Structures are given as structure tokens and as C-alpha cells.
């Protein structure tokens, strides 16, 4: 066997996607319903009483932020559970004893987690399009941001899944760090609407750059420049890749 063990990558990928299919209620329908409720409450009920933001109706304005909220949490959740569950059940022995390289393991697990998140993001987008009038100014960049963010945060989820030694730890970072940062990162507002001090503070929130870039691809307006958003997303990607490489080099929490 030489080169990539693509059959193994496919086997893991299909295994993970099959799990997604079995848990469609939890993996897909539940986040879609949650997001739809956000649209109803913030978009329809409250949004009608709010001014347009940057020339865009409030309902349409929050769409990128809400997709990003689900994308970040689900990418982390899918990837962390994907690698943690074999550790929990002990079936990781098979993965570690198979002729599979670390690159292939990462490719398969992160690829599957990112695929699920992208599917989820597109379903939420379709749901939003039903509820609010929506236009996408830069579809290519919208898809690029969607895929790039899904991959980046699936890598983060993979790291969390390797680090976690209990189900509780799988939830700690998404609940205590990612969700607050996303809510405070401009999901429901433009940071230009904040007082100057809080605007400056918000610029230290990395999620601001992700949401801003994604929102730009929809409406052509953003809180920070598109170049900075893209750069920050790529910076996250590189940081997480370096951590994953370190995990595999040292066998951290995978190999004795």
C-alpha cells in the first residue's frame, strides 16, 4: 500500500456520515428548529420594530450570524463527538492499529464533520430564505467562508474530542466559549451599533471576523474589511492544524 489510504478515508467518512443519518433529528432537525425560532423571534416579532441595518432588513441581517452560530457549534460538536466516541467505547484500537496515517484520520473525521456542518448551514439558509427575503451578493465567497469555517472549527472540535476524557468536557468549550463569543460577535447586531469602548473590545473577539466576512458575502457590508476576515479565518485554520499535528506527533491522549 503506497500513497494515501483513500479506502480508509472513505470508510471513516461514510461511517461518520451514516451516524449523521441515524441521528438526523439531533444533528439536523434540532438546530434547524432552533434557528427558525431565532428568525421568528428576532426576525419577525422584534425585527419588524427595528430599523434596517446598513440598508438591510433586520431579519435578513441576522441570517449570516445565525448560520455562523450553528456552523461553529455544530462543527465542534460533530468533530469532537466523532473522535471522542471511539475513545469512549474503546473501538479506537482499530483506528490506531490500521494502516492509516494521521493525515488520513484527520481528513476523514474533519471532512465528515465539516460536510455535516455545511449541509446544516445550507439547510438553515434555505429555511431562512423561506422566512425572510434574502439575496446573496457574493455566492462564491459565501460558500468559501461556509466551507472554510466548517473545516476550521471541525479541526477545533477534533482537538476537543481528543482532549476530552468525559462527555461533560465535550460541552464545556462550545457552551462556555463558542456560544458567548458568537452571541457577542455580532450575530444579532453590527458592532458599529456599539459604544466606541465596546466596539474596541469586540475587535478582540475572533468570531467577529468570521461573522463579518460571512455577512459581507451576503449583503456586501461588513464590520471589518473582508481581507482581515479572511486572514483571521485562515489564521484559525493554521493554529488548529498545528495543534492537531502536535497531537499526532506526541500521541497526546490517543496512544500510550
Amino acid at each position, binding site marked *: 500500500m503506497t500513497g494515501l489510504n483513500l479506502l480508509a478515508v472513505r470508510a471513516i467518512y461514510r*461511517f461518520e456520515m451514516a451516524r449523521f443519518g441515524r441521528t438526523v433529528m439531533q444533528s439536523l432537525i434540532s438546530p434547524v428548529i432552533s434557528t427558525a425560532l431565532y428568525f421568528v423571534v428576532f426576525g419577525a416579532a422584534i425585527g419588524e420594530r427595528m430599523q434596517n441595518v446598513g440598508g438591510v432588513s433586520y431579519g435578513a441581517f441576522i441570517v449570516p450570524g445565525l448560520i455562523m452560530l450553528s456552523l461553529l457549534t455544530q462543527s465542534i460538536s460533530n468533530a469532537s463527538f466523532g473522535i471522542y466516541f471511539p475513545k469512549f467505547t474503546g473501538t479506537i484500537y482499530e483506528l490506531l492499529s490500521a494502516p*492509516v496515517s494521521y493525515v488520513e484520520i484527520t481528513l476523514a473525521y474533519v471532512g465528515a464533520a465539516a460536510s455535516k456542518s455545511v449541509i446544516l448551514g445550507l439547510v438553515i439558509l434555505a429555511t431562512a430564505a423561506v422566512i425572510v427575503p434574502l439575496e446573496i451578493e457574493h455566492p462564491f465567497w459565501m460558500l468559501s467562508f461556509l466551507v472554510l469555517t466548517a473545516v476550521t472549527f471541525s479541526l477545533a472540535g477534533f482537538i476537543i474530542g481528543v482532549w476530552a476524557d468525559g462527555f461533560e468536557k465535550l460541552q464545556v468549550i462550545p457552551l462556555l466559549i463558542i456560544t458567548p463569543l458568537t452571541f457577542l460577535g455580532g450575530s444579532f447586531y453590527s458592532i458599529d451599533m456599539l459604544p466606541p469602548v465596546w466596539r474596541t473590545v469586540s475587535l478582540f473577539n475572533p468570531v467577529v471576523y468570521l461573522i463579518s466576512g460571512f455577512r459581507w458575502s451576503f449583503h456586501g457590508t461588513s464590520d471589518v474589511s473582508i481581507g482581515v476576515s479572511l486572514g483571521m479565518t485562515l489564521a484559525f485554520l493554521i493554529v488548529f492544524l498545528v495543534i492537531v499535528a502536535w497531537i499526532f506527533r506526541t500521541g497526546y491522549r490517543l496512544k500510550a
Partner: protein
Amino acid sequence: MARQPCVPAARIESAIIEAMSPIISIRNLSKTYATGFHALKSISLDIHPGEIFALLGPNGAGKTTLISTICGIVTPSSGRVTVDGHDIITSFRAARSLIGLVPQELHTDAFETVWATVSFSRGLFGKSANPAHIERVLRDLSLWDKKDAIIRTLSGGMKRRLLIAKALSHEPRILFLDEPTAGVDVELRRDMWALVRQLRASGVTIILTTHYIEEAEQMADRIGVISKGELIVVEEKTELMRKLGKKQLTLQMLEPLAAVPPALAAWQLALAKGGNELIYTYDASEAEDDSRGIAALLRGLGEAGVHFRDLQTTQSSLEDIFVSLVGERK
């Protein structure tokens, strides 16, 4: 025409196996865990193609660590392992693709079907789909009628067989069985022994660890005894039993003896049951010694005027040998 000496077929087979280059070569393998526990201490061992090698040892001796290291689950601290000439670190793909592993614990995906999980294992080892092979494996393991069953609905014995099916899914040349019959009933154990023999007949090299000495005695060609991370002995099973096994000759006396006659002191006989039994314990070298063997003893008894009614011989089991070997190390 000169008559050729009759050589047992097993000895010929053993000699052929010896002459072949090892399929697994382990040299000075050591493993120290992060806790400082020294699990393997400079283990060197060759496994020959087509043999059944049994690794015996008490709990915590290092059996599972040794297997896990060869299979890539545990990183060695030092030493080298090659599988069919492929280094397990630098040529891990080639090495691992030859190996199937059946773990000690029943690690399974609870929510998958039998067919899906066995097919998954084949793909994981880089083999393209082969439904005919998967079907053959499942039929051989009496799992065919459970192919669409969800794994969590299977009994413990079925899960054990499923793990074997997964390990065989990619047609490995080497199969590691870590305590394969732990917790399974007698009938299933016999079935598994039959399966192991069948696999060996098809050319698969088998390395098994077991707590059941009977299992090693029944199946193994060679036996290694590991204790506290050290390989104490590696020997062909029959040779091990011949070299280390004790035999005992018990003579039922016609008349009780008050003491062993001085003329028989060379045999270091023991009296039992109030002098009604005379016991001679001897090993292989003594048995082959003309001056100290059973024939000489019987002659000596006749010359000393000691008469017996009946006699019987017993031989120590592999279990006795194992307990004795491990006991010496404590």
C-alpha cells in the same frame, strides 16, 4: 536399502518453520509508561510464519502491552519490531496491513449492524469491498444470520466472534488474539479453537494470549512465558513440557515400608500414605539416564527385596510448569 529413522511429522514441521525467516521479529523491545511503570523489559522474540504462538503470563505481566506495541496502539520506548521485514514505525502501513487484532475487551460500535462494522474494518485496512469474503467470514463464525442485527442486541459470545470477523475482514496473514476465549462458554471455546486451527491451516500465523493453560496446551506450537515485563522462556510446547515437566512414578507397596532402603538413596524416593506408597519424581534428563531411570529403579527395588503391587505414572501439566516458572520470579 537402509531403513530411515522414523521422525515425527510435528518435528519435521517444526524444523521447517524454524528454517524460515520470522514473520515477526522483536529486538530489545522496551516500554516504560508515563507513570514510570516498566511494562516491557528488552523483549526479543521471533514468531515464525504459520505457527500458533501462545503468550502466557499473569495479570499485568505485559502480554497486552507487547501485542499493542506490535500492532501500533502503544508506542515503544526502545527496540525494534519488524513484521514480514517491515518496521512497525517507519513502514507502518505495510506492517499493519498484514495484522488482524482481536482485543481482550468487547469493544464494538453499539449502534452499527454486523455487516456494516465488518465492512468498515475491511475499508479501514485499505481493502476494496469484497462482499463474498465478508459473507464467508460471517458464515465461518456463525454470524451470517445476524448480519443485519444491531451490535448492541448481540450476546457476549457473538460480540467476541464479531471482533474476530472484523479482524479477519482484511484477510490478514497474522492474527493476534488477546484472551480470545475469556468469558465464553465451553462450546464456543471449542468452536474458537477449531477456527484457530482452520486459520492456521490456511497459512495464518496466530499469536494468542490466554489465561487458560489448557488452551495453550491444546493449540500452541510454541509457548512464551512473560512475567513482570520479561520473557522468561520461549520454547516449543512439547519441548517445554519435556524439559521442564516433572514425571512421577507411584508404586503401591505389597507391604508398608518403614523407611526407604539405603540402597535406593540415589533415586531420592519419598514415602507416602504410611509407607504404602513409594514415590519417584524425575525429569526428562533423569528418565534418559540409564543409571537413574525407571528400569534401573525397578532393578534396584528387586535387588533390595522391595516388592510392589501396582504402579502408575503421572506427568505435570503445562499449568504446573507455568506456576513453577512464574513462582520462581516472585
